[in-house]
C-alpha cells in the first residue's frame, strides 16, 4: 500500500559526460546477508568535485573502498579515462592515479607525522635502502605548509596529535600524492570549524587548478553546496539523485532524506524491514 505523500524510489542509470575521468557502472556489493550496494552508477568529470551523500550505512564508504582498490565489487564495471579499470590493490589504484583519505584516516599512531605522510611512498637511500628520513621530513614539512595546517613538530608520533591535526595529515598525505583522482571519505569529520574551513579552502584551490577530480563524502549540506559541483545520493544501494549543486538546495536534499525516513517508518509499520 503506497502512501501518495511519499515519492517512489528513483534509480539513476548509467550517465556519462564526454570529459569523464571515471565511470562506475552497475556496481553491486554484498557482505554476507547485507547488500551494501545494489546497482550504483556514478561518473566523475575532469576537474569536478562530486559530493557523495547518503544515510549512515548507505554504502558510501563501500563505494569509495571499491574505487580505491581496497575491496572488490561482486558485479559491475569501472572505467578510468574510458578504459576498463579493475584495481588489484590499493597500490595498483594509486599507481593509476587514484588516492584516498579514509574515514578512519589509516594513520599509524606509533609512527611519526612524517613517516605517516610518506607511508608506502618512502624515500630510501641507495645502494643500501635505508630510509631517507631527512628527505622525508623536508617533504612532509612542504606538504603540510601547502595545506596550510600548522603542525609544530613532525617527528612526534601522530598518537599525540589532536583529531583535527590527524585528519589534516591524512588529507595532506593524499593531496600530496601524484594522484589525479582524490577520494575523500568525510574529510571534515573530526575537525573544528577553523581546520574544516582550511580543508574546504584547499578543495576549492584544487578545483581552481583543475588538475584533480574529487569524490567527497560529506554530511553537512551547507558544505556540500559550497564545495561540490554536483551531488550523487545513495539510497538503498542505488543512486537516487544525481544533480549539479546549482540546481539543488539544502531544502531539497533534506526533503529526500526526510522522505527516506518516512518510507522506512512506513515499512516498519507494515511489519516488514525496509528493502535491503
Amino acid at each position: 500500500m503506497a502512501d501518495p505523500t511519499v515519492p517512489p524510489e528513483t534509480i539513476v542509470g548509467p550517465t556519462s559526460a564526454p570529459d569523464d575521468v571515471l565511470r562506475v557502472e552497475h556496481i553491486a556489493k554484498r557482505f554476507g546477508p547485507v547488500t551494501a550496494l545494489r546497482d550504483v552508477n556514478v561518473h566523475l568529470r575532469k576537474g569536478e568535485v562530486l559530493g557523495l551523500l547518503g544515510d549512515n550505512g548507505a554504502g558510501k564508504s563501500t563505494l569509495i573502498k571499491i574505487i580505491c582498490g581496497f575491496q572488490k565489487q561482486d558485479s559491475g564495471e569501472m572505467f578510468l579515462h574510458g578504459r576498463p579499470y579493475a584495481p588489484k590493490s590499493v597500490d595498483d589504484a594509486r599507481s593509476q592515479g587514484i588516492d584516498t583519505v579514509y574515514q578512519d584516516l589509516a594513520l599509524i599512531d606509533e609512527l611519526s607525522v612524517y613517516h605517516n605522510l610518506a607511508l608506502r611512498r618512502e624515500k630510501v637511500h641507495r645502494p643500501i635502502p635505508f630510509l631517507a628520513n631527512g628527505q622525508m621530513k623536508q617533504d612532509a614539512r612542504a606538504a603540510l605548509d601547502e595545506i596550510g595546517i600548522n603542525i609544530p613538530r613532525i617527528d612526534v608520533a601522530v598518537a599525540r596529535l589532536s583529531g583535527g591535526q590527524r585528519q589534516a595529515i591524512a588529507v595532506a598525505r593524499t593531496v600530496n600524492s601524484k594522484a589525479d583522482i582524490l577520494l575523500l571519505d568525510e574529510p571534515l569529520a573530526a575537525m573544528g570549524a577553523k581546520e574544516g574551513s582550511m580543508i574546504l579552502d584547499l578543495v576549492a584551490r584544487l578545483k581552481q587548478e583543475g588538475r584533480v577530480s574529487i569524490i567527497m563524502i560529506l554530511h553537512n549540506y551547507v558544505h556540500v553546496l559550497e564545495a561540490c559541483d554536483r551531488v550523487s545520493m545513495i539510497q538503498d544501494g542505488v543512486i537516487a539523485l544525481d544533480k549539479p549543486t546549482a540546481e539543488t538546495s539544502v531544502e531539497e536534499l533534506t526533503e529526500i532524506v526526510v522522505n527516506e525516513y518516512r518510507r522506512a517508518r512506513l515499512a516498519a509499520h507494515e511489519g516488514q524491514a525496509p528493502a535491503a
Partner: protein
Amino acid sequence: MASATGGPISPEGPAPAAGRPADSRRASIPSRHDLLERALALREGSIIVVTLLVAIYFSVNTSSFLTSSNFKTLLPYFAPFAIMGAGVVFVMILGEIDLSIGATYLFAPFLFSKLATAGIPLVVSVIIALMACTLVGLVNGFFVAIVGISSFVATLGMLFGLEGLTLIITHGEPVATPGAEVTTTTHNVVHVVNGVHIVLRETELHISTFAKVFGAGTYSELIWALAIVIVLQLLLTFTRWGLYTVAVGSNKLGAAEAGVWVRLVMIRNFMLCATTAGLVGILEAVRATSVQPDPGGANEILFEAIAAAVIGGTVMTGGSGTVVGALIGALFLGILHDGLVLQGVNADYQLFYLGLAIILAMTVNVYVQRARRGTHSG
C-alpha cells in the same frame, strides 16, 4: 606537487626545533644532564638503569662478579636469549606471539645432525637446517596471516607438532653434535729440569674451526648476538621492513588501507623469528657438543626469550618494541642467573629468588619509566 594558487604558508620560525621550551632554556650548555635525559628518553632507558643497578648490587656483594672469567660464564646465560629475543621482537611488534621458537630451537640441531651425518658438509647442513626453520616460520605466518588463526593457537600447534617430530626423528635419544667433537692429541714434551731432560706426555684439546665459529668459541655466541642485534635493530629502525612492521602492529587496517601488504609483512617476520630460533639451537648444540631431545627445556628457552623481549620494552599488544631492548632484557636475566649462583644461593632456592628478583626489578622499572615520562610531560 603542483604549486597551489593560495601559496604555501611558511611556518613560523624554524618550526621543527621550536619544540620544548626546556631545551631552548639551556641550549647554550649541552650539559651532562641533557645526555642523561636523552638516554632515559630511549625506550630501553629504564631497563638499562635497572640492569646497571642489578650489576652494581652483585659487584658489591660478591668478589667474583666483576671478573673476566665470570663474564665468560655469563655469556651463555644471555647471548642465546638475546638472539632469540631479537627475532621474536619482530613478531611481537605485530601484536602476535610465536610460541614455537622453543620447538624450532630444539628441532634445528637434530635436523642439522641428520644432514651432517648423512654426509652433507657441515656448513651446508647448517644452511639447510636454517632454511627448514625459515619454512617453519612460513607455515606459522601462513596460518596466522592467510588462514587467520590466532598466533597464540597456531604457534602452539606448531610447538607440539615440531617437538613431537623431533622426538620421532631422534627416538628420544640424545645426539652428539657433528663437527663439535673435541679431539685430543697427545705428544711428548721435553722439559729441562736442573739440566735433566724429562719427557712428559701432554694432551691438547682441539675444536674445529666450524665449532669455534658456530658456538663453541668462547666469544662466538656473543659475536653472533651482537651482530644479529645490530643488523635487526637497523632493519627495524631504518628500513621499510621495520616501518611496515610497526605500521601493521599499530594499526593493521590502516596499514592495509595505506597500501602496506599486511600479510607479507606478517609472514616474513614469522620467518625471521623462526630462523633466529633455529640458529640459536644449532649454536647451543655445538657449544654443548651434544643435544638432548628435551621439550621441557626447550619451552623454558621459549619463555626466557619472550621475557627478554618484554623486559626490554617490547609491548605485548604490539606497535612498539626494540631489538636492543631484547638484548638488555637478556643481559638482565643473565646477570640475575649468574649473580645468584655467585652469591652461593642454594640450588633449590635459585628459581624462587629469580622469580622474586624479576618482579622486584620490573617494579623498579615501572617507577623509573614513570619518572622519565614525568620529566617529559612537565
